[in-house]
């Protein structure tokens, strides 16, 4: 875990409102798939850093796939190569690759696809050869090309029918066909994965998103309700067994 300024190598759109940021890794340190970093530009505003999950680690380079949602990601989107950005991490508890075995399904909703490239590469490197990706998008898909040659079975759903099957991501799979389902996306999607897997008796793991301030477990601002009480998404997660998370009904 370090906090340092990193040089922006690339920061390019891969789709409208979706960018991939690549920074010089500096003192490279091991990053677990599913971990995240806190990123903040050198400008005083916005005040707080933003958590972005690790999209890939290649040599000395770290990359992040992100959606422009508000002031923080807008500021990051304005960076050009040569600019510097403060990167703090790697943070949180990521995916336990050794623990993911058999028929593995990765379920992504929108920008929830971000952590799955690095996870898929790690799973393949660990000899897992039965990987499926089910990705849902509102409109045109993005980030799928990252899985070419890594995941053989790629399934796409779009709400507007612009690609793949029209509908939401649950139309793409039956939980009983898999040994473990790993999900990252909006809360309604994660709740659907939790429920579907519970009924099918399939183990499910979720990676949670949350507003954060410190990102290191100190402020208790990003907690989520779980079966064992309020837990910190940043430090106790962001990866949790799906059955432990109590999704907010709102």
């Amino acid at each position, binding site marked *: 875990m*370090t906090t340092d300024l990193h040089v922006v190598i690339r920061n390019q759109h891969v789709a409208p409102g979706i960018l991939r940021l690549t920074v010089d890794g500096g003192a490279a340190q091991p990053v677990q798939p599913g971990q995240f970093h806190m990123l903040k530009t050198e400008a005083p505003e916005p005040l*707080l*850093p933003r958590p972005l999950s690790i999209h890939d680690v290649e040599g000395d380079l770290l990359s992040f796939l992100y959606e422009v949602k508000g002031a923080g990601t807008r500021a990051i989107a304005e960076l050009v190569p040569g600019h510097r950005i403060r990167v*703090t991490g790697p943070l949180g508890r990521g995916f336990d690759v050794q623990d993911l075995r058999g028929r593995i399904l990765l379920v992504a909703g929108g920008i929830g696809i971000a952590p799955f490239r690095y996870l898929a590469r790690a799973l393949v490197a660990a000899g897992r050869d039965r990987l499926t990706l089910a990705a849902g998008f509102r409109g045109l898909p993005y980030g799928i090309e990252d899985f070419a040659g890594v995941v053989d079975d790629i399934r796409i759903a779009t709400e507007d029918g612009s690609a793949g099957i029209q509908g939401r991501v649950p139309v793409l799979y039956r939980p009983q066909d898999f040994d473990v389902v790993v999900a990252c996306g909006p809360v309604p999607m994660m709740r659907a994965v939790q429920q579907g897997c519970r009924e099918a008796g399939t183990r499910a793991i979720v990676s949670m998103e949350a*507003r954060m301030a*410190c990102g290191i477990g*100190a*402020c208790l*601002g990003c907690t989520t309700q779980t079966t064992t009480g309020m837990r910190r998404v940043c430090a106790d997660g962001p990866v949790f067994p799906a059955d432990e998370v109590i999704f907010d009904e709102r």
Partner: protein
Amino acid sequence: MSADIVPDLSVELNGVTLKNPVIAASGTYGFGEELLPFHHPSVLGGFSTKGITLYPRQGNRGIRLHETRAGMMNSIGLQNPGAEVFVRDIAPRIRGLTGCLIANVGGSDIDDYVQAVAMIAAADVDMIELNISCPNVKCGGMAFGMRAEDAASVVRAVRPVCPKPLMVKLSPNAHDLVAVALACQEAGADSLSLVNTFNALAIDVHARKAVFDNVTAGLSGPAILPIALRMTRDVARAVRVPVIGMGGIETGEDAAAFIMAGATAVQVGTAGLVRPDALPRIVEELAAFMAREGIANLGQIRGIV
């Protein structure tokens, strides 16, 4: 002015010597362990723990954080493992992390405060910081910090069960802050820390409702610095006990301003959330400022404004 002056940053606070005046503020530094990957807490003057209550608390549901211009609002709601777990498990574990371990204690009513302080002050901590200023709990908390007589009643009640130095954390939302400060001093406070967060409101205009479930929440960060600085000066000029100033400190020069306003030491909260090395940097910047300005020790600038 001498260019090679080596400034002495140490301060005396109720008989405890702090190596420098920079203390991590309660609620922003966990129990000190969370920061270990980035710096050792011993480089600071001390730290104040997450607020501890007599019984464990889950804290507030819903959104707990909201960023504002030059600040942030929080409504954590005193999530903590309770006094028993703190005394038995946490305090012994973190004792060695700092030369000044300040246990921040919250409560809902006077009995709560008394029982919690009695338990926690008996543990190996250096000071108690009595939180009568949390704006994010439904009963108690800030309610005791709003009026002088209420503040005095809780301080007077805990004083006999607190053999350790007793710091009382004041709310900037008090009707008459100087009156509350004086009342706490008369009731036995050994020092006063201020300010806790400003009670504030954010509205989601698209949803047409308040951002936070509790409607209001506490504002902190650089936006509040000038007001907190003025309040620190007001209180420091009125009381005899040491004042620990805080509110939006981001740099060593910000810390120096609070000392010039009369603070004995400072606390830093939000800046440490923004970047985990903020507090050690503030210590270094304050030392560099003092060296540059030929200030040998903080006594030379304390309360000069």
